């Protein structure tokens, strides 16, 4: 049965596709702030990241599809060296506390790496577990890279890693997206890293710094499973695409009603098809003219459709966060959730949409359970 996990400000909700359509099957952690969930297609483990505010960031794992949960280790930052003084980032405040503020990305390693999980965090940490989350180690080469200290917060006070793309052809080949710090690539499992944001443009910076790679704010990076050379990015100031495995990026500008937004999904089998849920602009983070729309390209970004069927077209102020849009492994079913607790599903690759709820807590993330492999 198809499942989708919806992480919200007040709990984790499991949707199931039965004979009558999609329906809520379970509510977990009701009342708690669940920021992310990750089903591991390799062994059926289910992970939930919680932000308890006062009590910190916790990670839980279920081995029975969400019926029962056990708290497991959360990533822990290393000890600061004696006398350490942080350098000033490009803007904002330096990372003074080496302490976990948010789990912002969870991604299974390769099919040939059972137990490997990658985790992106605020402030600016990339962690790896080799034992399905029992223990974590920070990726030192990235953390110790002097360019990492230049990263700065976009929206949050501190920088963070929100996107992790593990290449299906070679699990040592991993890309991450950093707000704000561009896109980074390792080809050796994290021993060495290259900054790979050439061509991205940051119009929030002074003119002479707009093309610097380490200041870019890719809100979300999505890699095509069937053609991993193709990556789509919803960036702070537009849509970018790479066709050469992130070596270079091209900006796509002519999209109505807007190229601003957070979420992007790419068809798992066809790199030319991608979906976005736009907001108006940086300074107006809600749908244009109160109309919720999905923009879709089916020709690699040459043309975009603005899809409205089944979506509210007046006085809707839903914003869709970066992890709150997902596509299933057939590229047919999509779900997205909003800050005002609405949830929509499409079962025709985005042609039309149906509301599943309009009174959930604010939605942070949706994630389909992918077929086990």
């Amino acid at each position: 049965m198809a499942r989708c996990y919806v992480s919200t400000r007040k709990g984790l909700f499991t949707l199931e596709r039965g004979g009558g359509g999609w329906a809520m099957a379970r509510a977990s952690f009701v009342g708690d702030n669940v920021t992310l969930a990750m089903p591991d297609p390799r062994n059926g483990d289910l992970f939930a990241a919680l932000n308890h505010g006062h009590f910190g960031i916790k990670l839980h794992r279920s081995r029975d599809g969400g019926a029962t949960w056990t708290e497991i280790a959360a990533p822990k930052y290393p000890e600061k060296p004696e006398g350490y003084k942080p350098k000033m980032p490009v803007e904002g405040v330096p990372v003074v506390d080496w302490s976990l503020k948010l789990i912002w990305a969870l991604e299974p390693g390769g099919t040939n790496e059972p137990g490997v999980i990658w985790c992106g965090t605020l402030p600016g940490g990339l962690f790896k577990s080799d034992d399905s989350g029992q223990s974590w180690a920070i990726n030192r080469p990235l953390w110790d890279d002097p360019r990492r200290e230049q990263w700065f917060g976009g929206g949050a006070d501190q920088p963070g890693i929100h996107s992790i793309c593990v290449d299906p052809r070679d699990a040592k080949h991993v890309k991450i997206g950093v707000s704000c710090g561009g896109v980074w690539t390792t080809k050796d499992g994290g021993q060495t890293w290259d900054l790979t944001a050439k061509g991205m443009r940051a119009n929030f910076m002074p003119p002479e710094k707009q093309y610097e790679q380490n200041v870019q704010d890719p809100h979300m990076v999505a890699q095509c499973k069937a053609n991993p050379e193709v990556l789509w990015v919803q960036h702070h100031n537009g849509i970018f695409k790479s066709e050469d495995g992130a070596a270079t990026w091209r900006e796509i500008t002519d999209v109505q009603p807007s190229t601003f937004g957070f979420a992007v999904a790419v068809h798992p089998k066809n790199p030319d098809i991608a979906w976005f849920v736009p907001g108006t602009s940086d300074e107006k983070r809600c749908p244009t003219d109160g109309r919720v729309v999905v923009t879709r390209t089916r020709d690699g970004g040459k043309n975009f459709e603005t899809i409205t069927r089944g979506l509210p077209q007046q006085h809707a102020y839903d914003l869709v966060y970066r992890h709150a849009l997902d596509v299933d492994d057939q590229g047919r079913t999509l779900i997205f959730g909003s800050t005002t607790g609405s949830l929509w599903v499409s079962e025709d690759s985005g042609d039309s949409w149906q509301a599943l709820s309009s009174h959930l807590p604010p939605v942070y993330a949706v994630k389909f359970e992918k077929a086990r492999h």
Partner: protein
Amino acid sequence: MSLFMPSVRFTRNIQRHVECPTRDVDGATLGEVLHAYFSTNERARGYVLDDEGKLRKHMAAFIDGQQIDDREKLTDAVPEGAVVDIVQSLSGG
């Protein structure tokens, strides 16, 4: 070990996540007292202290009703027989 060990009490709100019964533990500073408590309840440590061992930003600690001074190194003295309260600041949302 002193005859009159300090006692540590925790806010009700934390009990929902991790059980923290009131216990008498040995120690002459807040750091020593908490370390003694967490040594037999390791999971609770991360709910009260951050990765650097500081008191979490929105937690507060009182020793016999007095707010502590040192939230980072937890060096406040804990007299024999004192009561240590670990509570949370109020917030909404």
